Structures are given as C-alpha cells and as structure tokens.
C-alpha cells in the first residue's frame, strides 16, 4: 500500500513539494520506528536530533509529505514533535514559528491575556 502511494507521489509532476531530502527522511521512518519502537529514550533522542537539524519550514514540508502519503505513523510522530517543541513557548515564538500575525482588535488581545494570565506562568524565554 505504502509503495504504491510513494510511486504515485513521485510520478505526479504537479507536486513540487517533495525533494529528495524529504523522501530520504520520511520514507525510512517505518523501519526506524520498528527498530526503535520499544525504546522510548531512543525515540526522544531521534526527535531531538530531528528538531536540531530541521528548520520549521522543512518540518512543514515533512508534515505535508507525510499527510499526502497518508502516512499515519510519520504524521503522528511529526505532530507530536512539533507539539513538544512549542508547548512551553511564548505567544510570540509560536507566531514566528507558524508565520502568523496577530489579528486581534487593539485591547482585545490584552484582555484575553489578562483573563488567563496564569497560563503564561513558567513559559520559556524566547
């Protein structure tokens, strides 16, 4: 099943998002998973390594590739990696990471932040 989709993906010339680099990262994942499934610590290390070597934009492409390939385990892995990376970060960091800008009315954002001030405690420095 997975091989068919991959072949189709490469054959589809309209798809410009896949580069060889991504193909070499996403596709070997199931093997890597099987090998280190039992060992959570190794997975954590692999995750850390992945985060260090891959820029957010690259991670985006990885996720999109995994999503297109309907590759559930890889998608789960990448989403979890992103979630772990951003969970303790500030609002500004997250905006930069996802390439977003605040669209709140003036004062609206402040009001929201004040109401839930407790959720800003202990957040990582940018």
């Amino acid at each position: 099943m997975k091989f068919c989709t991959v072949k189709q993906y490469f054959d589809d010339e309209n798809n410009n998002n896949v580069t060889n680099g991504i193909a070499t990262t996403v596709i070997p994942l199931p093997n890597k998973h099987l090998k280190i499934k039992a060992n959570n610590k190794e997975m954590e290390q692999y995750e850390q390594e992945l985060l260090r070597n891959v820029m957010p934009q690259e991670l985006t492409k990885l996720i999109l590739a995994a999503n297109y390939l309907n590759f559930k385990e890889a998608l789960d892995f990448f989403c979890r990696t992103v979630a772990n990376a951003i969970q303790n970060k500030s609002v500004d960091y997250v905006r930069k990471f996802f390439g977003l800008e605040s669209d709140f009315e003036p004062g609206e954002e402040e009001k929201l932040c004040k109401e839930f001030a407790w959720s800003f405690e202990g957040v990582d420095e940018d």
Partner: protein
Amino acid sequence: MSDYFPDEIIVEIFSRLPVKSLIRFRCVTKTWCSLISSHDFIKMHLNRSLSSTKNPPFLIFRHYDDKMEKEWFTLLSSNDPFPQNHFSKHLDCKWVFREQNRLVLEKQMKKKGFFAYPSDFKELHFPYRSFMKQNLYVVGSSNGLVCLLNDTPGDETDLVALLWNPSIRKSIFLPCPGVKFYPSLHPMHYLGFGYDPINDDYKLVRLVYLYDLFDQYSDGKKYFPVSDFQIYTLRTGAWRTITGHSCQIIADQSFSVFLNGSIHWFGHTREHNGDFHNANSASRNVILSFDIGDEDFHEMAVPKSLEEVHRFNMKVAVLDGLLALVPYRDQAFGGFCSVWVMKEYGVAETWTKLFNINFGNVLGFTMNGEVLVTKSGKLRIYDPNSQRTLNPHIHAQPESFYFDTYMESLVLLNVEDGVEESLIPQFESLFYGH
C-alpha cells in the same frame, strides 16, 4: 490560519498539546482562539486524552487541613500520590551531619504535614473558597469537570451546585432546580454526576427523600423517595423534572460513583409485606444504578452473602475500572472492612472478595493497587499485597476527604457563565468577597 500548515494539521498538533498551552495559544490569533474554544475541538482533545493513556494521570484530592486552617484541592500522581521520599527532598542536607539529626528534622517536618512542603502535588485554585467553606460536598468528577454542592443546612429546600474545571480555572453555578419541599419533611438530596457519551452531555441527577410523617412510631427515621427526580444537563443549562417514576430502591447515602455510563448508589429495596413497620427487615441490599443516557433506574445485585446484612455501613467504589463494594463495621479502634469487586460488570455471580482491612475504612484506590484508608480520623496508605501501612502525614478531618481520578480537559471553555451566576443574586456578596 497559516501559510505553511493546512488546518487539519494545525488541529492535529493542537490535540496533542497540554491544556495550559492551549489556553495561552488562544492569544496567538483570533482564528486560533475560536478554534481552540470550539466544541468540536474540545471534544477531539478530550477523546485523544482518553484514548492515549490507559490510566488517568492524576488523583484529585480535597481536604480541609486543620493545622493550616485551609481548604485544599490538589492534584497528585495517580500511581504514587504520597511518595515516601517527599519530606527528605526538602531536607537541606548540608546541615544534616548525622543520621540522628536527619531523623529529628524529618519528624518535625512530618508534624507540619505533607502539604507544608511544595513538591509532588499541584495546588488547584478553587474560586469560591469563602462561599463554600462551611458545607462543601463534592458530588463527583468526569472528564476534567468537578461537580460541587453547597450543602447549606440553613436552606434545606433547595440546592446550589457548581461545575468546575480546575485545569482551565473556569466554573459555572448551576441554576437552582426550582422544585422545593416543605422544611418539615426534612428533604435529603442524593446526587450523582456523570458524562453521557451518546448525547455528548454532562448531567447531574437529584433524588429527593422526604421524612415519612406517618411513620413516627418506628425506631429509626423513615424516609421515602419522591417519585419525581430532577436532572440537569450542561447542554440545556437547565433542570428538568422526570415524573411518575416509581423507584422501589432507596439509596442509603448520597455518595455515588460514576462508571460505565451509570451512576451507582448503595441502597436497599422497599419490601412491602403488608406490615409497614417491618419493611426494613424484609428489604434486600442492592445497588441502585441510573443510566445517564437512558435516564432510567436499574437494580444491580450485591454479593449474595451481603444481601441480607444490615449491620454494616456499605459504600460503592471504583477499583481499577471495576465496580467495588466496601462493607464497613465501625468499632472503637478503627473498625474493619472488606473490598469486593464485580469482575464482570452487571454479572452478579462475578462478585469477588479481594481482601480485608482490619483497621479502618476505605477512602479510595490508587492506580498501582494501594488503598487509601481512614483509621480513627487519620489517613493511611495500605498495600494489600505486602500488608504494609504507610503514613502520608496529612492533617485533616476525614469527613473533608474526597478522592477521585482526574485528567485535564478543556470542557467548560466554551460555556458562557454570565447567565448562570446572575440567577442567584443572593449569593453574590458571598463569593465576590473571597
């Protein structure tokens, strides 16, 4: 949403984030704010939490600390709520040269109590401390929501309840049921709280028992159940009365557990043998269960050997996802009890006695098989396998204890609380002053 990520991916990432992060990220953009607060996302996040871990990660513990004179709501690890090394973590080892000094210091710390040393627990911020101080009763908790009752003796005719999600620090007051009873009938409310997965709704059910004025000649106070009962649902934000239900089972106490979609109370049947005064001796012990989806009552059998036993104080509980029954006999030095579980839900023949405890009564169970026991007003942790008992050093009245499993969720985030609060203007001054 984002130039880089399609919406489905954003949602996949969000559903893996902890509650505190999600609350903060509502401030990123307006779209994110509506998404995180949307009913569908709240449900998705909850479902992911429910399916990802086998056991709930926390125990929620409530107690009134009489040394600190403080009402506490805390989250503890569900595996090891009161770790053995809790106090030694706070010993400044530089100054402790000899084992003797260390022991003396630890003894002093234990006198202050477990909660005097900030580690191994997370304090929850209960919003209405002064309002609820005197007569706080926890009905139950489900999917991160805790249902509390203000059990005011002053006004026995109505009830004031609160739904609280400590992980998002949000609470709403429920409107009063509006069904009142004459004070001379000494109404007693028995409540149960749970989640209805079919209708995706949270419900609070209220049974009322009235003092039987015509049975003043029997030994104990006789109560009869009112044939109507009230049910509150979060989706409607209102109470409904269900009439004409004739329940032949009397719940013995308000304490209930929610399991497998039903609320369970321990009770007994009303056997009418023509002789009204001897009704008690002919009645059987049973478990009254209320199916929260069907909104219907059912009877469940207790172990055969406990059916006719009336001298024990019996309580329902949940152990490892199974319905449990704890018959307890009070005595001068702690009393004794036993723990039974129904191995196959609904199959009476599968009731099995697991173990006895000969020094106290069961309060609850941890996720790794230990039992929280109250012994002469003190809390102990008992391991039925090793038969070891440990003292967690909690200084509180056992009547104030409440234990349940807990997991964080976003439930209540999208519920507007303004309306509910304004329905009880007479309580405003009480809780705004805390």
